[in-house]
């Protein structure tokens, strides 16, 4: 199997688990991330689960500009994640530092410290924007062009028995 097919299969079976990390944000984006789990938006229909440990996570969802105190921790969390891993910067602050650019305790956006796969701007990024951004990230895993959304049907986790029967 080519690397790309491996990733697609992985995405279809495993369903991405995310770890949410706040790097000094005002909490607006964090609330919107949690709101995307609640009934109105329900991100779990993508098979996305919010996990507490980086060791089991596929996607690191970051909010907030990087403060000096949190920088090393952010790097360690990123290093603890197994490959393949992706980083989503949620909110203007994680994209570029936002209103806190130039503040003495702020380094800047997330990409000043770790590589970022997807940027979701907004102050705060609304749950709809977060879902849109995640769908586009998953789309890139399916080999679609940057900015194209994933084919959701392909992502919905199938029952394990059916999957095993399909793969023979």
């Amino acid at each position: 199997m080519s690397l790309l097919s491996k990733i697609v299969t992985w995405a279809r079976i495993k369903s991405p688990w995310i770890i949410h990390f706040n790097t000094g944000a005002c909490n607006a984006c964090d609330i919107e991330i949690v709101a995307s789990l609640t009934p109105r938006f329900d991100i779990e229909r993508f098979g996305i689960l919010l996990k507490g440990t980086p060791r089991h996570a596929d996607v690191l969802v970051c909010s907030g500009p990087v403060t000096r105190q949190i920088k090393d921790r952010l790097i360690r969390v990123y290093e603890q994640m197994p490959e393949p891993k992706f980083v989503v910067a949620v909110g203007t602050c994680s994209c570029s530092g936002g209103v806190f650019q130039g503040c003495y305790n702020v380094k800047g956006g997330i990409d000043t410290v770790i590589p970022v796969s997807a940027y979701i701007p907004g102050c705060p990024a609304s749950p709809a924007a977060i879902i849109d951004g995640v769908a586009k990230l998953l789309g890139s895993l399916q080999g679609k062009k940057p900015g194209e959304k994933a084919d959701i049907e392909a992502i919905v986790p199938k029952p394990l028995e059916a999957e095993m029967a399909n793969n023979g």
Partner: protein
Amino acid sequence: MAKVTIPIGPQHPALKEPECFIVTLDGERISHMDMRLGYNHRGVEKACEARTYVQDIYLIERVCGICSHSHSTCFVQAVEEIAGLQIPPRATYIRTLVAELERIHSHLLWLGVAGHEIGFDTLLMYTWRDREAVMDIFAALTGNRVNYGMNTLGGVRRDFTKEQLAEVLKVVDICEERTKYYIEVCTQEPTLINRLTGVGTLSHEDAMRLGTVGPTGRASAVDKDVRRDDPYLAYKDLSFKVIIDNHNDVFGRAVVRVLELMESYKLIREIIAKMPDGPVTVKAPRKIQAGEAFSRYEAPRGEDTHYVKANGTDKPERVRVRAPTMANLQSVAKMLENNNLADVPIAIAAIDPCFSCTDRMIGIRRGRGTGNSMRWDDLRNYGVKWYRKQGIDFTDLNRKLAKKQE
């Protein structure tokens, strides 16, 4: 019994890093607690000095994403006082309306978070779903779900139409209906009462001594509410009750917040009924004359204070912000004395700290130095299981609530 020290902080299990809370246990009971804070320190006060007053309104709004309007209004009030600006009455009423709507969304958010911390997840899902109705109203009125950007120097940036205000009343009716149901659940479900009573106790004397504010203080009979004591915005023309409770514990803090929700619904109806016509802004100078002002505001979490010093230029000389959580954090150590480890998540959540403060991990060091780590989620699960063994279990209540909503 050997003492065990448990650091609770935003650290990764593999690292030794500065912790947020260091809890010393004597068996299961907490004998002492230390605090190490500052993870969200961004240097906002210094940044304010390098930006104009209008730019600062937007910066200050983002000190906290849940009570953004509180910070922005408290700040702009101080600047308007120094400049001697009289803002139009309609602007005052609009600011007050947004303030009370913010209180509603914040308390509903808290109810959900508190439910989550004790294993009552259905409450999280329902209150946050109800909260979405308020978020929709914010988006319709102000253009954004959070960080509304309503304030400007001299008034507000948007006016509301009669139709929009009618929509607000509809949302208030729905939320009031739902809140009555939550009050029933909070005050009558034995599981909830047993879980929250006696947890995180803070005596009235300690609460006064430690400067506790907001619902946390009012649950220990600290009769402080800036809206009544030091009226600002439209509050001197409005009638409302200050909710005081003397349970002194987390249960009291929950009761105070749900009853405050009811008061806010009444307030919003009164604000809309009394809203005067007229302009919504006056022209404000770019340079603010030298002077100083101390502004106070009753944010959902408690008293918020802003001190502003102006020096005749278009940038402030000094801005000093004190968010309510900072005043209440002092009392967390006292509250947790003689509580169980299992009570830590809900006791900390009950002062309603900013969400990021509760995003933590725990490192457990046993007496002989052997390391073991737990995450906040694991401590929360530990708490839920520990109480299940004592007979306090939310599984049935979760199911019952879910059934009722179908």
